[in-house]
């Protein structure tokens, strides 16, 4: 059962990675504007002239 020590460590580490990812995205401003990107994606690509 000693393997649990290792697994618990792994699970905490992985959770920390996800927390870090969230903090990074927050600091990076990815949550600042959650409306405009949804509208932007609906625009057509520029026509080739």
């Amino acid at each position, binding site marked *: 059962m000693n393997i649990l020590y290792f697994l*618990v460590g792994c699970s905490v580490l992985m959770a920390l990675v996800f927390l870090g990812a969230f*903090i990074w995205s927050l600091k990076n401003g990815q949550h600042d*504007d959650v409306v405009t990107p949804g*509208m932007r994606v609906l625009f057509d690509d520029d026509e080739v002239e």
Partner: protein
Amino acid sequence: MIEHHKILSASICYHCGEEITGIDRVIDDKHFCCAGCQGVYQILAANNMCAYYSYNDAPGKRLSHTSHFEYLDEPSVIKQLIDYQDEKSTIVTFYIPAIHCSSCIWLLEHLYKINPAIFSSRIDFLKKQVTISFKNQGLSLRNVVETLVEIGYEPAINLQDVVKENSNSVNKSLILKIAIAGFCMGNVMLFSFPEYFGLSGLERQFQSLFGWLNLAFSIPVTFYCGRDYFVSAWNSLKHKHVNLDTPLALIIAVLFLRTTYAVVFNIGPGFADTLTGLVFLLLMGKWVKQRTYHHISFDRDYRSYFPIAITTLQDGKEKPKAINELTIGDRLWIRNGELVPADSILMKGDAWLDMSFVTGETEPQQKVLGEIIYAGGKQMGEGIEIEVVKNPSQSYLTSLWNKAHYTDNFKHNFNDSVAKYFSIAVFIIAFAAMGYWFFNSNTTKAWAAFTAVIIVACPCVLALSTPFTLSAILSVFDRRGFYVKNTDAVEELAKCSAIVFDKTGTLTTTENAKIHFTGTLDQEEKKLVVSLLNHSSHPLSRQILKSLSFNGFYAISKYKEIPGKGIKGLVNNQMVYAGNQAILPFDIKPIQQSGVHIVINSAYKGTFVIEQQWREGLDKLISKLEDSFRLTVLSGDTNKDHEALKKLFLPNAVVKFKQSPHDKLEAILIQQKTGEKVMMLGDGLNDAGALKQSNFGIAITDNINNFTPGCDGILKGSSLNDLPNFHQLSKDGLKIIKISFAIAIAYNCIGLYFAVQGTLYPLVAAVLMPISTITIISFTTIATRFFARKNHLL
């Protein structure tokens, strides 16, 4: 491109969607109402950007006026505006009120097609902001702004830079704290689970590992996420006063110490799960409370109305200068439609000033040379030269904001007043329990009971029920067009006992103004007038044109439009004048001073009078309010509407006219001294002081995107009739909070039963807290909906 003019057809402008009332301009089979709309279309067509029109029908907005942007070449002004600059490029953010649809986003994010020196432009739709980065070489800030103006998106550049005030860094750190607290809570729950179900012999070897891990997760929650509670508690204790954060901080500290003690001496699981859960829920409550409206600013003062720079005259040459660099003695050049930024003396020119910002009076006033012109006046007519006599920050108008007495407006909320008694009660019970066990010489139990009482009697529910109830009320309000600044303001609204109204723009509206003519015009004269008005793009001309609904025009020559005065022209060999007294060839004695006077061939024919309409359903609203409030009307205007107001209000209501902004402020102060809680409804800058001083200031507007003075709530004109219901719901909200407080106390009693016996097992605390929280949150939500429906707001 073939361009030809066609005479009036009942069609709609391809660009702005307004009905075409004058000359119909046609290009590429598309109809336009004015040169402005047509110009924008031509620019877009030339740059292959007509996709703008394919996302929405008529996405444009009609250009109302033209501004001067010479000041954007001044380095001191540029420095204030830009976000970032290096040798190659500049980044700047503008607030553009005209942004309203997906076409706007498309167009503004394709600016590089119009000007390749623009690298990129990004829109934040809710905040109506565009961030533009451009090459320094070949493009100046002024060029960028002029490009935006050309395509119909003029940025609002004010002294109070809206863009920079809206920074949400406070909110960001709160979200970060919630994320960390939530993360820790989840993990602690996971490691506490075996404990909940009882440990088998095999699992027992992990007990201390899980304990230490839980302790590790509690550290950031206590010292980072819960930090604000300790700071706030410490500050309030320093001021010898107890707020709600004081018992909360105490509980967090006790929970943490007991957990540490339990883990270090290996005597049980500790309270890490309760601690992390508590902090997480508290922060959630805080977040709900902080919800704000990004597109509305409640803190505008005079600086939002003033431009950032003004034209000065130095040795006869025009030179732009930033407003905050103005000094006494500067000569200013004020063009048509520009604001006077500082109290000054008129030196040269014909001054017709629209003082509606300052006094609320709608008629422009004429000033003579040497007379003082107060800041906030808007010049209507040709340019004038003035000399500054007072700094902009010390002018008559801005002194409204500098008064010191706003600070005594300290607002006390229900939570903080209850917190004091709550804390005292908890301490009495805790010490009583401890004393009892000491008396029975059971020291361990004494300490256990003492800490357990503090943990169980958590005012967590109190801290949560208020924000959840009030924010549910806020969302009911904003669905009905009433935007309240924050949750604390809802409590203030509930306490109001008197209402003060402004008249113009608050009780009346210009939205569906009626136009009537004092004289009579025969068919021939009508045709003459219509032909003249057709050439003007002034909003008044268009309104009158619409009301006349006449087809057929004469050719016109010698047409002249004098800004701020009116228009004249030779129509069918007859001289026709339309405008205010200043344009007429002779003095007249009109029945009505204000309005558009018509003179044909030196004969006065009559005046088009624009009547302000009372808002619909006003009589019903007033009679409803009269039962529960003391009503007052303070009008900046003359007493011409006295009779009409008398009919609307009961005889005991106070109605005052010719009130200056300072008079209004004083009137509110006097009412407050008699112990009334005053609600003020106003619309303009002239009400700003009164709005700020009142306990609850409401700015009324017909268009939410217009500028409104600083206030506690913004109300759409069409929702004014719901005011009694809004007030009733806010009162019901306070009732809900009190009931939920009673529920919380019931739960606490169960917990206390175990706590005083010193037998509070962590599991009981961990289960009791979430259950009581869920009960309270669902109760407040359901109760709010119930009351909103009862008040016909849902």
